[in-house]
C-alpha cells in the first residue's frame, strides 16, 4: 500500500522549498549588488548611484519579503512533516538552524528595516553599512543552512546513541568538506542570478533608450559581476561534482546514467533509461570523458549503478538504493547546460562592454530580459539533483526518507496543507511578479529637482 503521508509530505517539502529558493538567490546576489552601488554613491557622491541604489533596492525589497515569509515555513516543516527525522538528527541539525536565526535572520531583518525606513534618519555611511549588514546576514544565513544540508549529504561529527544521532564535534560539522564546495557554489549562483536580473531589466530600458545613465552603468557592472560569478560557479561546480563522485557515488552514477562500473568511464551525451528494467533505451556516450571530469585525468574508475546497488545491499541490507535516474540525469544536464550558457552570455556582454560598444545598439539586448529565467532554471534543477540524487536517504547512509515522516499525520491533513500552501504560494507569486514587473518597467526615479516633492516621494 502506498504511504500517502510520506508521498504528500515529500511533495509539500519539494514545492515549498523550491518556491522558497526562487527568492533566496536573488536576495544573496542583489543585496551585495545594491550594497556596492550605495558604497559608490557614498564614496563619490554621484547622484546617479543613489538613483541606482534606490531603483534596484526597491526590487530587492519586494523579492526579499517573499524570501522571508516563505522561509518561516522552512524553519517549522521539519517538525510538522518530518518528526522522526527531527528526533533522529535534531541534536545536530537543529543547531545550525538556530544559529542561522540568531546570527543571520536578526541581522538582515533588523538592518533591512533600518535601510528601508532610515534614508533620512541616519548618516549616509551608516545607511550604506545597513545594506552591507543585510548582505552579510543573507550570505551568512546560506552558510548555516548549508552546514545543515551538508550533514544530510555527508554526515560528520556525530555518534549514534539510543537510536538517534548526537553531536560529537561541532567544528567537524562546520568544517564538513561538503559545506566548502556547496556554499560557494550556492552563493556565486546567487550573485549570477542577480547579475542576470540586472542585465535583463537594464536591457529592457536600454532598448527603449530610457534612463541611459542608470542602466548603462548597471549593465556594465552586472556584466562584470555575472562573468566573475559564473566563472566561479563553474569552477566550484567542477570540484563539487568530483566531491560527489567520492562521497555520493550513486548520485553521480544516476546523474550520468552509468549502469556498469567503468574504467576509463564514459560520459553520456544523451540517454533515455528504462529504470524498471534496468536498461537504456537510447544511449550516446563519449569515452573517457567522465573519468576526465571526475579525476582530471584520462582514466579512473567511476562506479556504476548496479555495483553500487550490490554494495549498498551488503552494507545496509536489502532495499532499492537507486534514485530516480532520469530526473537526476536531466536535471544535472539542464543545470550544467544552462550554467555554461549563462557564462557565455555574461562573458559576451562583458566583452562588448570592454570593447566600448554603444550598449543601446547591442543585438543581445532583446534576448536578455528572457535570460532572467535561466538562473532560476539552473538553481532549481541543481537543488532537485542534490536532494533527489541522495534518495532513498534523507541522511546519507543513516536514515531513509521513508522512515523520517511524522507517523501521527493523516493523508487528509497533509493534503489540506499541501493544497493550502500551493494555492497561497501561487497567488503570492502572481502578486510578486506583478509588482516586480511594474517597478522594473517604471524605471528609476527621475533626476531630482525637476519634480514635485509628492512625485519624488511616490518614486522613492
Amino acid at each position: 500500500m502506498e504511504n500517502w503521508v510520506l508521498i504528500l509530505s515529500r511533495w509539500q517539502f519539494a514545492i515549498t522549498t523550491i518556491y522558497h529558493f526562487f527568492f533566496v538567490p536573488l536576495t544573496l546576489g542583489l543585496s551585495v549588488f545594491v550594497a556596492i552601488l550605495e558604497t559608490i554613491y557614498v564614496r563619490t557622491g554621484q547622484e546617479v548611484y543613489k538613483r541606482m541604489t534606490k531603483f534596484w533596492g526597491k526590487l530587492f525589497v519586494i523579492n526579499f519579503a517573499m524570501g522571508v515569509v516563505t522561509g518561516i515555513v522552512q524553519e517549522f516543516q521539519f517538525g510538522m512533516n518530518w518528526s522522526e527525522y527531527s528526533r533522529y538528527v535534531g541534536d545536530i541539525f537543529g543547531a545550525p538552524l538556530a544559529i542561522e536565526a540568531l546570527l543571520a535572520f536578526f541581522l538582515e531583518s533588523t538592518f533591512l528595516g533600518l535601510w528601508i525606513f532610515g534614508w533620512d534618519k541616519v548618516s549616509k555611511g551608516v545607511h550604506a553599512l545597513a545594506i552591507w549588514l543585510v548582505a552579510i546576514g543573507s550570505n551568512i544565513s546560506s552558510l548555516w543552512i548549508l552546514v545543515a544540508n551538508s550533514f544530510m549529504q555527508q554526515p560528520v561529527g556525530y555518534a549514534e546513541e539510543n537510536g538517534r544521532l548526537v553531536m560529537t564535534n561541532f567544528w567537524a560539522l562546520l568544517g564538513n568538506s561538503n559545506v566548502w564546495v556547496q556554499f560557494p557554489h550556492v552563493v556565486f549562483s546567487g550573485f549570477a542570478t542577480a547579475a542576470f536580473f540586472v542585465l535583463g531589466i537594464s536591457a529592457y530600458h536600454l532598448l527603449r533608450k530610457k534612463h541611459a545613465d542608470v542602466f548603462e552603468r548597471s549593465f556594465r557592472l552586472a556584466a562584470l559581476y555575472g562573468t566573475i560569478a559564473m566563472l566561479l560557479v563553474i569552477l566550484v561546480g567542477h570540484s563539487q561534482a568530483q566531491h560527489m563522485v567520492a562521497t555520493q557515488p550513486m548520485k553521480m552514477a544516476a546523474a550520468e546514467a552509468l549502469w556498469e562500473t567503468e574504467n576509463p568511464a564514459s560520459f553520456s551525451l544523451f540517454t533515455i533509461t528504462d529504470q524498471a528494467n534496468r536498461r537504456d533505451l537510447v544511449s550516446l556516450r563519449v569515452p573517457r570523458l567522465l573519468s576526465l571530469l571526475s579525476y582530471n585525468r584520462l582514466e579512473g574508475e567511476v562506479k556504476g549503478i548496479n555495483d553500487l546497488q550490490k554494495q549498498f545491499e551488503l552494507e545496509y541490507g536489502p532495499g532499492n538504493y537507486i534514485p530516480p535516474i532520469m530526473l537526476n540525469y536531466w536535471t544535472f544536464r539542464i543545470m550544467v547546460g544552462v550554467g555554461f550558457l549563462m557564462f557565455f552570455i555574461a562573458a559576451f556582454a562583458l566583452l562588448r562592454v570592454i570593447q566600448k560598444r554603444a550598449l543601446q545598439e547591442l543585438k543581445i539586448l532583446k534576448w536578455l530580459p528572457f535570460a532572467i529565467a535561466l538562473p532560476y532554471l539552473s538553481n532549481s534543477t541543481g537543488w532537485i539533483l542534490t536532494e533527489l540524487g541522495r534518495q532513498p536517504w534523507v541522511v546519507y547512509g543513516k536514515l531513509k526518507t521513508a522512515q523520517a515522516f511524522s507517523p501521527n499525520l493523516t493523508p487528509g491533513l497533509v493534503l489540506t496543507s499541501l493544497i493550502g500552501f500551493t494555492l497561497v504560494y501561487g497567488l503570492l507569486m502572481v502578486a510578486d511578479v506583478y509588482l516586480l514587473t511594474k517597478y522594473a518597467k517604471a524605471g528609476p526615479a527621475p533626476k531630482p529637482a525637476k519634480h514635485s516633492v509628492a512625485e519624488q516621494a511616490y518614486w522613492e
Partner: protein
Amino acid sequence: MTLGTLWFVLIAVLYIGYFVLEGFDLGVGILLPFLGKNDLRRRAIINTVGPHWDGNEVWLLTAGGATFAAFPNWYATLFSGFYLALFLMLIALIVRGVAFEFRSKDENPRWRSLWDWCIFLGSVIPALLWGVAFANFVRGVPIGPNFQYQGTFLDLLNVYSLLGGVVSLLGFALHGAIFLSLKTVDDLQVQARRWAQRLWVPAVIALVAFTISTYVFTDIIDKSGINPWPVSIFAVLALLASGWFIRRKQDGWAFVMTALAILLAVTTIFMELYPRVLVSSIDPMYDLTIENSASGPLTLRTMSIVALIFVPIVLAYQGWTYWIFRKRIVEKADTLHY
C-alpha cells in the same frame, strides 16, 4: 542549573521576546480596520510597525530553531501534533508579512483593501492561536507512547484553550493600541488611546478568568515543580496598572506594563510546565520533559556559548533601531515608506 534547564529558560526568554515585540505589531494589525478610517491613516498605522515587524518575527524563528536544537523531541512532537494549527499560523504570518511590503506599492484601492484584509486576518489568527497553544501546553494534550501526539486538531479546541486564545487576542490588541498611541499624534493618537481604554476592561477580565480557570480546571499546579502563583498575581497587577497609566495618558508606562504583563504571564506558564515541556493528558508517563527531550551535552554547550554571545548583541542593535525610529508617525503621505 543543568544545561537542559538553562535552555528551558532560554526558550522561555525567546518566547517572551517574541510576544512582547510581535505582540504589539500583531495588535496594530488587529486594530487596522477599526482605527484606519481612510487610506492615509491606514498607511500611518502600518508605518508605525514598518521598520520593526520583520525583526520581531525573527524571535519566533529563533525560538523554533532553538527548540529544534535543544529539545528535538519537543520540536518534533509539538509541531507534528499541532499540525493544522501551525499550518494556519504559517499561512497567516506569510500573507501578513507580504501584505506589509506590497500593500502601498500600488494605488488600486482593491489591491490595498485586499492586503489590508491580509494584515488584519494575518494578525488575528496568530494572536488567537498563540493563546490556544499555550493554554494547551498547560492543560495537556493527548500524547501517547514514543512521544506521539494521538489527538486531532479538535482536541486543541476546548473552553479553557479558547479562553487562552481570547486572553492573547485581547492582550495583544491592547498592547498594540498602547504602542499606537505612543507612536502617533493628534486624532489618531486620541483614537488609539480610546481603543486602549476600551480593550483594557475585557483584557483584564479575560486574564483573571484564565488565571482562575488554570487553578480550577487543570491539575498543572499540583504537578508543577514550582508554584507560580505570585508571578501570576503580578501579571494581573501589571495589566491593571496599564489601565491606570492609559487613563493618565502616560502611554510609555502603560506600554511597559503590558509588556511586563506578557512577560509575567509567559513566565507563569513556563513555571507551571517545569520540568516538563509538553504535558500528556493520557498519562504522566508520556510527558515530554527537559530530560527526555533534550539534546546531548555538546549541542547544548555549543548553543549556550552562541546564545550568550549573540543574544545581547541582537538586543543591542535591535534596541538601537527602536531608538533611531523613536519619532512619532504623522499622517503625511510623503513621509511614509510603506
